């Protein structure tokens, strides 16, 4: 008995065996709940499956071809890029600035930090409905401010979600508002990970203010900035909540992004195969962005 117990323990001490045992549940879970459905979705994208059934006739690349020939799909692809890039550009500039101010200690910081964290802590599916009210064509509080600042004509108030250009700006604003606190927190983590000695050494060498920021702080924060951008891009490109609730792709498909269009095609219109093909277009793009960023993050850290 004792010998057997010893042997079992010996086997458990072997790194390979233990590593396999410890990772197995995770790999199984992900394999069953992400890998298998993903495989099925890829298969469906090559079929003419419609709602209610998960099997269809094999039609090769026809779904992809019809998507590429579809002007709405092409504008959705472009809108996804615009929506993601502009909102994340705003976020990264603001988050860098805000984190540098927030890292200092000052009276009332706890409360100010609470206010800044609110958009991140609150469920976005709910706050997006709140914005539906703030953007209301008749009673928008934003319009009220603009009228009282004499920036808009009360007889001709902006239709925040009703015209193509305004609608795109509106959903970009909400997305930036929603991601900014999270990006700020990642930046805070990055700044606080810079050892105090580096700061001291820079001060001894006479680096101050902007110079120190440009030559010392900025290069050291590059990896963390990349992490923040990466999360922002992934959360923005794969998530349909903000456009789905605020505009549902409208007006005239001007805010249609890949996720909302895949949802409309696959679920509302019932063309599961084509919906899957549209959703799958995003995958190689995002994988490319991620791998490139992980590569840069690692390199930036080595140097």
């Amino acid at each position, binding site marked *: 008995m004792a010998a057997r117990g010893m042997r079992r323990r010996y086997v*458990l001490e072997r790194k*390979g065996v*233990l*590593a396999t045992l*410890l*990772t197995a*549940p*995770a*790999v199984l*879970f*992900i394999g069953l709940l*992400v890998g298998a*459905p993903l495989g099925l979705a890829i298969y*469906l994208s090559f079929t003419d499956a419609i709602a209610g059934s*998960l099997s269809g006739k094999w039609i090769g690349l026809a779904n992809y071809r019809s998507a590429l020939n579809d002007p709405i799909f092409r504008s959705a692809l472009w809108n996804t890029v615009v929506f993601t890039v502009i909102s994340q550009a705003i976020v990264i500039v603001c988050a860098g600035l*805000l984190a*540098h*101010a*927030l890292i*200092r200690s000052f009276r009332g910081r*706890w409360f*100010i*930090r*609470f206010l*800044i964290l*609110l958009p*991140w*802590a*609150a*469920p976005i*599916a*709910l*706050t997006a*409905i*709140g914005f539906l*009210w*703030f953007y209301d064509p*008749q009673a928008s*509080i934003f319009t009220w401010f603009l009228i009282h600042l004499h920036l808009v004509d009360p007889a001709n108030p902006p239709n925040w979600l009703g015209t193509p250009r305004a609608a795109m700006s509106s959903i970009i604003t909400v997305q930036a*508002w929603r991601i900014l606190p999270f990006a700020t*927190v990642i930046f805070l983590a990055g700044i*606080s*990970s810079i050892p105090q000695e580096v700061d001291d050494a820079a001060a001894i060498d006479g680096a101050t203010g902007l110079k120190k920021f440009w030559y010392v702080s900025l290069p050291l924060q590059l990896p963390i900035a990349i*992490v923040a951008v990466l999360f922002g891009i*992934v959360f923005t490109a*794969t*998530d*349909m*909540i903000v456009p789905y609730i605020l505009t549902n792709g409208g007006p005239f498909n001007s805010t249609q992004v890949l*996720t909302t269009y895949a*949802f409309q095609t*696959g*679920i509302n219109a019932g063309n599961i195969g084509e919906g*899957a093909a549209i*959703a799958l277009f*995003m995958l190689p793009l*995002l994988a490319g962005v*991620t791998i490139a960023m992980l590569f840069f993050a*690692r390199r930036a*850290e080595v140097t």
Partner: protein
Amino acid sequence: MTSGWRHKAFAYGVTVPFAIVLAFPFFWMAVTSLKPEAQVYDPTKVWSFHPTLSSYGYLFHHTEYLQWIRNSTVVGLAVVLITLAVAVPAGYALARLSGRVGRSLGVGLFLTYLVPPTLLFLPLSRVIAQLHLSDRLWALILVYPSFTIPFAIWLLMGFFKAVPQELEDAALIDGCSRLGALVRVVLPVSVPGLITVVIFTFSLVINEFVYAITFISSATNRTLTVGVPTDLIRGDLYNWPGIMAAILLPSIPLALLYNAFLNRFITGFTGGAFR
């Protein structure tokens, strides 16, 4: 003295405007939630009105609001438990035991994050139906770990790597098994990391919308994010004060929780997912 003054001016000058812009929507939600329903569209009553709590009363007595909060909390806690049980061992193994393979497996797990729910829920809804879990909270408890686990493992890998190897070696020399060292040495010093994972997991679950709207159909089984848009909005009739109250109530405690744990969160994140 001068530099202290400039230091403060910069801190307030940047943080106060940002705080106002970021928190204003919540302030306006609070104002709207206190208005009588008939007055929200009246342009002469934007600021002057008699505050009333009637929308909160409506929420608690005439909707399933409390039930939705309970559902979200139950699902959130169950998913947190499953995520920790699966991700802690995996994160430790990938950080300590498996070298290069572990690193690529870690990146591979993160890549699963790129697969949007909009793509997976078509096949998954079929699986849920086959398992007779349609319209049950169990469906969400089963599916949510598919996006919380990769993220948790990925964070935990960073935290575990930050634990000094010598601590563990000392425990091994003292006769601890590897698993014993994980439980007695590594986990206690990784508490900030574990809290980070708990908060993150819970917030991902509370935020989830696509699966919840697809798998759950009856009002009593809805979670918060689905109950408010589907049951409080009836056709074109929006009860704005009630909706604002419904958004505000869970947001405030969640933000307080985030704020209370933020320093630990930062400590955890600095443990470095990319190291």
